[in-house]
C-alpha cells in the first residue's frame, strides 16, 4: 500500500467521521438540553426519522433544500412539543411516550413514503440533489486538514458551533443555570417563581427541532434519498452519546465523533472491499456507553430528577 494512497484513505476516513457525526451531534445536543430540563426523551429516533422524511418530501416538491431543512426543523419541533405536553403537562410516563412516538414515526413515515411514491420501486428510489459541501476559502486549501475540517457541509459547521454555544447557554447564563436547576431540583426552581413547565416544553421542543435537523442532514446532505428507517438507530445513538459524554457538551462532541468514526470506518472498508467483522465494530460503542455509565457513576453529571415528573403539590 503506497503512502499516498494511505494518506488519501485516512483523509476520507476523517472527513467521513465529521460528516457521519453531524446528525448524531445535532440530536445529542438537543437531547442534552431536554434532559437537563429533566425530561428523558426517548423519541429522538422518531423525531429524526420524521425530520428526514418531511425534509425530503418538501425539498422534492419545491426544489428548495433550505425549505426542506426548515420544515424538518418544524416537524421535529412539533413532535417535541407533543412529547413535552404529554411529559411536562400531563405527567405521563416519559419512557412510554417516547417509545410510542418512535413506533408512530417508523410506521407513519414508511406509510407516508409508500403513498407519496406509489409507482417508485425499491430498485430506483426518487433522489434529490443534495447540499453542496462548503469549501471555506483559503483554509480548505491546507493539505489534509483543509480536506478534513474545512470542506464540509454548512450544517456540519453549524453543528460544531452549537457545541460551545450549548456549553455557554448551560454554564454561563442565568437561563442555563435555571434550566439545570429544573433537571436537578425542580421544587427549588419552582419556588423562585419560575414556570417549570414552560421551560421544559421549550427545552424538549428545541430537542425535537435538533433531532429533526439531524434527520434532514441524512436525506438532504448525506444521501439525497429517503429509504424507510433511514435514521437507522442514530436517534438511539444520540441518547447513548449524551450518557457517554456524561451530560457535558464537550464530551458529547467526542462521543459523536467516536460513533461517526465507527460508521466512517465501516463505509470506507466497504468501499475498498476489505472484509472485516465490521458488525463487531458497530456494536462496540454501545458497549462502551454501558461501561461509561458504570464507571462515571461517582462523578456522574446526570440530572438528578431526570425522568421523574414534577408534581407541584406532592412532596
Amino acid at each position, binding site marked *: 500500500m503506497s503512502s499516498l494512497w494511505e494518506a488519501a484513505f485516512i483523509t476520507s476516513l476523517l472527513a467521513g467521521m465529521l460528516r457521519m457525526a453531524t446528525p448524531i451531534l445535532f440530536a445529542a445536543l438537543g437531547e442534552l438540553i431536554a434532559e437537563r430540563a429533566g425530561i*428523558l426523551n426517548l423519541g429522538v429516533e422518531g423525531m429524526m426519522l420524521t425530520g428526514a422524511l418531511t425534509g425530503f418530501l418538501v425539498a422534492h416538491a419545491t426544489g428548495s433544500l433550505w425549505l426542506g431543512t426548515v420544515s424538518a426543523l418544524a416537524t421535529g419541533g412539533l413532535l417535541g412539543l407533543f412529547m413535552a405536553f404529554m411529559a411536562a403537562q400531563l405527567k405521563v410516563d416519559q419512557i412510554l411516550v417516547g417509545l410510542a412516538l418512535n*413506533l*408512530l414515526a417508523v*410506521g*407513519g413515515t414508511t406509510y407516508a413514503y409508500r403513498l407519496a411514491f406509489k409507482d417508485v420501486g425499491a430498485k430506483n428510489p426518487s433522489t434529490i440533489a443534495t447540499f453542496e459541501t462548503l469549501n471555506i476559502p483559503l483554509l480548505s486549501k491546507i493539505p489534509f486538514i483543509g480536506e478534513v475540517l474545512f470542506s464540509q457541509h454548512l450544517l456540519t459547521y453549524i453543528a460544531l458551533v452549537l457545541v460551545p454555544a450549548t456549553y455557554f447557554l448551560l454554564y454561563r447564563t442565568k437561563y442555563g443555570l435555571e434550566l439545570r436547576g429544573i433537571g436537578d431540583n425542580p421544587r427549588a426552581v419552582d419556588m423562585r417563581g419560575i414556570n417549570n413547565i414552560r421551560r421544559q416544553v421549550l427545552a424538549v421542543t428545541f430537542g425535537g427541532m435538533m433531532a429533526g435537523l439531524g434527520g434532514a442532514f441524512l436525506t438532504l446532505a448525506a444521501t439525497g434519498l429517503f429509504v424507510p428507517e433511514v435514521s437507522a438507530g442514530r436517534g438511539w445513538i444520540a441518547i447513548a452519546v449524551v450518557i457517554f459524554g456524561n451530560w457535558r457538551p464537550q464530551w458529547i462532541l467526542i462521543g459523536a465523533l467516536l460513533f461517526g468514526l465507527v460508521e466512517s470506518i465501516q463505509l470506507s472498508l466497504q468501499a475498498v472491499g476489505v472484509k472485516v467483522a465490521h458488525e463487531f465494530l458497530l*456494536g462496540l460503542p454501545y458497549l462502551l456507553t454501558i461501561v461509561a455509565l458504570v464507571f462515571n457513576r461517582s462523578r456522574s453529571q446526570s440530572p438528578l430528577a431526570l425522568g421523574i415528573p414534577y408534581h407541584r403539590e406532592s412532596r
Partner: protein
Amino acid sequence: MAVQQLRKSAGARWKIERRPDVSTGRQFVAILLALGVSFVVSAVLIAVAGASVGRAAVAALHGAFGDLRAIAETLLQATPILFTGLAVTVAFRARLFSIGAEGQFFAGAMGAVWVCMLVGDRLPSAVLIPLVVVAGLVGGGIWGAIPGLLKAKYDASEIIVTVMLNFVIFFFLAFLLGDAWRDPSSFYYQTPRMPAAAQFPELIPGMRLHWGFVLALACAAMVYVFLWKTAWGYEIRAVGINAEAARYKGISIPKVTVVAMAVSGAIAGLAGASEVPGLHQRLVLDLSSGFGFTGIIIAMLGRLHPLGVVPAAILFGASVTGISAMQIAVNVPVAINQAIQGVILIFLLMADVLVRYRVRRTNPRV
C-alpha cells in the same frame, strides 16, 4: 395530589386532581377509549391511502378470524408478543422500565440455536425440545440479569442499559451470522436449519401454528402464579408499589431488581426459543419485527396482568394478520401496523390521564 389549579371567577376554584384509586371499570373504559380512537385514526389513514374503509375492514376481519386457518395465523402471530408482553409485565410490576425484551428475544433464540449446534442431531425430540426451551430461558435470563445486576450494584439506569444491550446483541448476532455461525451453503446471513428433532410440532395439522402458542399460554398461567402466589412475586409487586415501604419491611431491593430482570429476560428469551424452532428453524437477522417493543404496548394494554395480556396479544396478532390481508385486498401499505401500534399506546396513555384524574370544585374560602 392535585396537578394544577384553575381559577374560575373570583370565588369558586376548580382543581384537577389525581383520584386516590382507579377502579377496574374505569381502567377498562380507558382501554376501550384508546382502542376506539385508534380505530378511527386507522380508518383515516386507510382513507388517505385512497382505499375503501369498509372493504378494508371486511378484509381485515376476514383475514384475522375468517376461518380456522385465519385464526391459526392470528394465534401464530400472537405467540412471540404474548411472551414479550408477559416479560415486560414482570419487569414493570417491579417498576423496572426494561426496554430489553427485544434483545433478550434474540439472546433466547441464539441460546436455542447454539444448543442445537452443540448436540447436533443425535438426540430425540423428547430430549432436544426441552433442551432448546431451557437454552432459550437461560440465554434470555442472562441478557436480562445483566442490566438487573448493573442496576442493583451500580445504580445504572435499566432503561439505558437495556436499550444499549439490544444493539449489542443485535450486532453480535450479525457478527456471528457473518462468519462463525453462517450457513456455508447460503448466500444469506443465516445459520443452517435446526435438526428436525428440535422443531416444535404443529398444533393443527397442515397449519403453521405450533406448540409454542400453548407454551405461551402456560407461561401466562405461570406468570400469574409467580407474581401473586409466591414470595418472590409478592416482593416484586411490593417494590413496584412502594419501594421505600418494601425496604423498611426488610425486602432486599437489589435482590428483587436482579430477580425481576432475570425472570423478565428469561420469558422474553422463551419467545426466541419458540419462534425459531416453531417457525423459522434458523437464525436470521430480521427474526423479530419489534416483538420486544410491541410487548411493552401489550403489557400496558393488558394492565400488567396475564389475564389482560393474553387478549391484548391475540388482538395484536389479529392486527398483523388482518392488515396483511387488507394490504392484499385494498393495497394499503403494511407499515400502517406499526403506526397504529404507536397510536394505540399514545391514546392509552392519554385515556389513562382522563380516568386517573378528576375535576373537583373546592371550597372558595379555604
